[in-house]
């Protein structure tokens, strides 16, 4: 009891007095495997600092707060090549005195990094991978996820389509693994929210280039033909994370139908056009610093560094265990310009968040949609919920 009181008193003094105490340095690592991601639209080709820029902005924001608390934040980003061993990169983080790191790696590499960091007490923040399995059967107790899952994105879209009474879907799926995973999430969402997939079609990636000197002449006739035989539907839903065909669908389908999913109306955790709930302030700060628009990946990284900042502000940045306890406590609420507080799902360390629906120009809507109720948090109508989870954090290797 006395100890608690003393701790509380010390805390108050620390926060309220502008004293010249010693500055606490909080170094955050950032492991990423970049490489150009191919895209149909030039506008979708990511900037070289995609993600890292968001982290840097949050470092600035944390440091503005930190100057009142004698805390200083720094970021060290490392680019891994395909052949680099994530476990070795984790070793370097430890040598350089870091116990916190953002990771933007494919699922398999992320798990290698997480398991290598486990014994050494590292806490990771997944800012890239949207794979459900990282929050389900392959969840880790030392990986927090600020990126949403495919199922959260699919559910966010499905709720809107059902609200709009567009219940009959034509599902077109790409031939890559990620496309199939997104299609799985869309099928699950259709079932949960009462939509019907009237037909599924596969769009094979035959390996063609996305840009050619001959241009789009053939595509203009290919897409109507491809969609010609489909039964009547309200909306065409495309699963094309590999960006091979989806952007070719709008305005070219046989029947005049809206497109959603990987093109047209796209579910995302952030968009450069989102300006509600004070987001304009964050967008302005970002553009001022980086002279480009803020992407979803930038936002995942911003949220991760801000979560660390929040823990530090509350004097819980000391070690990862303490930090996780703080994220799990009622004191933690992340303000991230989504109109409500974001909290962490305690069963798999996934950040709860609304899903924006963007047409590429403006935000059309934000899910959860009205009427989709939940006994704990309406945000838990998005993605895999507690009763269905396969994640066992106690049993996980993390």
């Amino acid at each position, binding site marked *: 009891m006395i100890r608690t009181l003393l701790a509380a008193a010390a805390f*108050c003094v620390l*926060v*309220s*007095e*502008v004293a010249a105490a010693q500055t606490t340095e909080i170094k955050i690592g950032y492991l990423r495997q970049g490489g150009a991601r191919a895209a149909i639209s030039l506008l979708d080709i990511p900037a070289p600092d995609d993600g890292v820029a968001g982290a840097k902005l949050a470092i600035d*924001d944390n440091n*503005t*707060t930190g100057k*009142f*608390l004698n805390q200083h934040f720094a970021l060290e980003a490392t680019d891994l090549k395909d052949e680099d061993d994530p476990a070795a990169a984790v070793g370097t983080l430890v040598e350089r005195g870091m116990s916190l790191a953002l990771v933007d790696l494919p699922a398999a590499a992320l798990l290698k990094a997480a398991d290598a960091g486990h014994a050494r007490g590292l806490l990771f923040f997944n800012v890239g991978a949207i794979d459900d399995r990282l929050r389900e059967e392959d969840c880790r107790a030392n990986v927090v996820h600020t990126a949403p899952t495919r199922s959260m994105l699919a559910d966010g879209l499905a709720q809107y389509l059902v609200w709009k009474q567009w219940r009959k879907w034509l599902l077109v799926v790409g031939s890559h693994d990620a496309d199939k995973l997104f299609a799985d999430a869309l099928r699950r969402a259709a079932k949960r929210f009462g939509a019907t997939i009237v037909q599924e079609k596969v769009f094979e990636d035959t390996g063609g280039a996305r840009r050619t000197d001959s241009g789009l002449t053939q595509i203009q006739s290919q897409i109507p033909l491809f969609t010609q035989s489909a039964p009547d539907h309200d909306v065409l839903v495309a699963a094309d994370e590999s960006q091979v065909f989806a952007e070719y669908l709008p305005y070219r389908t046989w029947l005049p139908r809206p497109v959603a999913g990987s093109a047209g109306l796209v579910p995302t955790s952030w968009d450069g056009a989102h300006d509600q709930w*004070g987001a304009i*302030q964050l967008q*302005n*700060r970002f553009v001022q610093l980086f002279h480009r628009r803020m992407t979803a990946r930038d936002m995942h990284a911003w949220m991760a560094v*801000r979560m660390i900042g*929040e823990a530090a*502000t*509350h004097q819980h940045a000391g070690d990862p265990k303490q930090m996780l306890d703080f994220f799990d406590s009622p004191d933690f*609420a*992340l*303000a991230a310009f989504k*109109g*409500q*507080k974001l909290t962490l799902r305690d069963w798999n360390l996934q950040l709860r968040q609304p899903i924006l629906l963007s047409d590429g120009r403006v935000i059309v809507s934000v899910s959860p949609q009205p009427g989709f109720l939940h006994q704990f*948090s*309406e*945000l838990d109508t998005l993605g895999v919920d507690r009763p269905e989870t396969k994640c066992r954090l106690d049993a996980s290797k993390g």
Partner: protein
Amino acid sequence: MWWRAAFLGTAMAIGLAHPAAAVMAYVSNERGNTVSVIDTDKWQVVKTIKVGQRPRGIALTKDGKYVLVAVGDDDTIQMIDTKTNEVVDTLPSGPDPELFIEDPSGKLLYVANENDNTVTIIDIDKRTQLGAVQVGVEPEGMEVSPDGKILINTSETTNMAHFIDLASRKIVANVLVDSRPRFAAFKPDGSELWVSSEIGGTVSVIDPVQHVVKQKITFAIPGLRAEAIQPVGINITHDGKTGFVALGPANRIAVVDAATHDVIKYLLVGQRVWHMAFTPGEKYLLSTNGVSNDVSIIDVAALKVIKTIQVGELPWGVTIARH
């Protein structure tokens, strides 16, 4: 002929004298780029003034001559002459002004610049900037202590109330509050500072001498999810006994016993309630309801909503002027 002129003169004098007693409410309409003027005797909008882009913070000057309105997207504060109800001048507020407050002398204006992490100090008479104080990320709430010595600023992403000594213009204390602090209000006797946290869903009651949060006011409304309770505006009665807290998308104003800090009652108002203002004598309280485009009128003694008035698009701030 002379008697007619004299008669007209008298009539005009009476005509001028009469509105001098009228109490007008000025409502900034964030999306409409207008200010609605409400006659509080008739409860009617009597004029709609065109202003700059994205009007939010709005307040009457101490001398009663101007209503100041921060037009954030135009990076300025416009001055509305309360006699003519027209925009007559501007103040160099710095970028993206949102909320501001006058010092007790009425000479200086302190402005929160959301994009710049600063509080700008303006000489109102000279219309010039006197300086700036660096604060936390996204400064918003502004308040001056009743003794005029301390300026309070809340910063939305830093989650602190900054105490700025007005003589030295230096920060003397920072008090951590819950997420996204948007508004600060002192009790009239200066004994407590209340700070609302929009995302955190609480109002922190701060001891302004010790610089510590001594209590948090929490809210619970049956049937409403906790995330929808987002406290913003705070108004405390002159006797310091009752506090009103606007709860945003919860569409309610909480009535708080300012001694015990317990919620006595929730008043159902329009959608997304932002800010409030008392009429003279605290007979009525007006609230701006952002999403339903209206203003609710609350009878303070009865604690009842008695009327709703349609205003412009997305009403945000409100201030009262006696004409």
